[in-house]
């Protein structure tokens, strides 16, 4: 059951890792939801067009990158409010994918079974390889140091926009894989609003994990197991209390944010 929970929480973890990087560079991207949802749709379109799940994953990355570019254009280039931009990006993705899906609902693309990866390499990639690689980049390279500096004191960094765009690029790859995994491996295709709030959940796990990769893994695992337990208990007809249990991660995150459950320090320039 734990393995199942881990697999189900994989898109969430990828989103958390991506958002951790982005927030380290000083940006709050509420548009993760948009990136994942767009990715889920483009992954299905590409996978069906090419009969290959691998191409589908690339398609997902392209979709997430498109949504990310829109966010970046407004938030980084125009310096528009990041929160408003993120919310608008989410609404746009929800509306656009909903519209396209309805138009093409009957076409083979969304009816036929989607190609899948024979071995789900994304799970070990997300839980082991990527966190180590990202941690090395963020903490052991000059690039990572400068990226973090953009999140702490952007005035001290030359070419802040370059680093923020890079962070957003990394997040696009991660959320793209996340959307593809969601659509191609966890479900059998696209469904309207299929990301269902995972973006916002990822956002709270980033805080829960205190902007660190170890925390990200721990937080996502806890959340995934709690969610899986909820289904198990619902099946046993004892699901009622679990609505309260499901609220617990958010209460915990709230407490962490207030520094009640341990010390926390957000990147200094987050959101500016």
């Amino acid at each position, binding site marked *: 059951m734990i393995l199942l929970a881990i697999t189900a929480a994989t898109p969430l973890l990828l989103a958390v890792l991506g958002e951790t990087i982005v927030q380290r560079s000083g940006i*709050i991207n509420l548009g993760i939801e948009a990136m994942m949802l767009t990715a889920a749709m483009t992954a299905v379109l590409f996978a069906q067009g090419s009969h290959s799940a691998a191409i589908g994953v690339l398609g997902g990355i392209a979709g997430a990158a498109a949504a990310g570019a829109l966010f970046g254009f*407004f938030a980084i280039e*125009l310096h*528009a*409010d990041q*929160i*408003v*931009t993120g*919310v*608008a*990006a*989410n*609404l*746009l993705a*929800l*509306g*656009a*994918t*909903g*519209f396209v*899906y*309805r*138009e093409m609902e009957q076409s083979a693309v969304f009816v036929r079974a989607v190609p899948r990866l024979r071995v789900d390499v994304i799970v070990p990639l997300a839980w082991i390889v990527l966190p180590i690689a990202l941690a090395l980049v963020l903490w052991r390279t000059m690039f990572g140091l400068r990226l973090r500096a953009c999140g702490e004191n952007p005035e001290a960094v030359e070419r802040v926009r370059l680093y923020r765009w890079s962070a957003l690029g990394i997040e696009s790859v991660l959320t793209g894989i996340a959307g593809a995994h969601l659509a191609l491996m966890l479900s059998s295709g696209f469904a*309207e609003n299929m990301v269902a*709030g995972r973006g*916002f*959940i990822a*956002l*709270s796990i980033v*805080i829960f994990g205190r902007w660190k990769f170890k925390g990200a893994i721990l937080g996502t695992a806890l959340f995934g197991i709690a969610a899986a337990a909820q289904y198990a208990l619902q099946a046993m007809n004892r*699901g*009622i*209390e679990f*609505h*309260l249990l*499901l*609220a617990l991660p*958010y*209460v915990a*995150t*709230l407490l962490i*944010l*207030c*520094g*009640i459950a341990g010390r926390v320090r*957000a990147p200094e320039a*987050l*959101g500016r």
Partner: protein
Amino acid sequence: MTRAIVAVAAALALVALAGWLFGHSPIDLLTILLGGSLDETILKAIPLLLTGLTIAVAFRAGVWNIGGEGQFIAGALAAFVAARFGLAAALAASVIAGAAWASIASLLRWWRNAPEVLTTILLNFIAINVLGWCVNGPLQESSARYPQTDAVSIALPQIGDVHAGVVLAAAVAVVAWWLLYHTREGLRLRATGFNPAAAKFAGVNVEAQIFRAMAVSGGCAGLAGGIELLGVTHRLFERFAAGYGYSGIAVALLAQLHPLGTVVSAFFFGALATGAGELQRSANISATVATLIQAVVIFTMILFGRRERA
């Protein structure tokens, strides 16, 4: 004003274009989209107006209240519980509950410097899960068949084909306008949002000011929830909030954060939501075009907002 018109035109043109690309007549599409029934438009506009004010008041004070969704639920839950004491009590309870739910965020901000952007979002999730627990547990209907409550015993009186919430919401908009632009409280509030350092220097207690702004803001969202319960749904269920909290952002931005502009903007988005529903029924075009338009409106407003300032 020009900005708002350009934004609306751009959004409508984009949707017409998208429909045309998929083989729908753009004229028919726009006719249906903008030709929804007046009554339903007003019904949809009421919660949008109040959640729009929620955003506008908080933004004016320079704080983020993304928690409209949670405050909406808190208000509806309180109205449901207080319904046995009568209509006035239920409505008052919804305002207080919304304000209280928002105040948790401002308390945490004041006490621990926790950013309200994040805390209000977290409080949304907590409210959604508490509502889920209530309708599956303590407040579930007596027949215990569906995850929903029994119908409330009282309802807002009808005025023609719409409920009296329309008067309440319009009155709140006028009061908010008067408060913001014709009282000292409003001046201080706007000063706080405009330049907190200068406001502090001029003797405004910035923290207390933000606290009150958040309470007023949350009260509006709470009232929206109470009115929606007592006027439209009469029951609570898991997906009760239906995104009104987030739609409020589009409403407020199109109105350029002006309370009276919010009335017009809410009416527009209400018409859009109504027309989009009709579009889905009669032309099989997804009702999510309403969401799409909200997004394009926000983006255009940002784009042109910059140019105006520059």
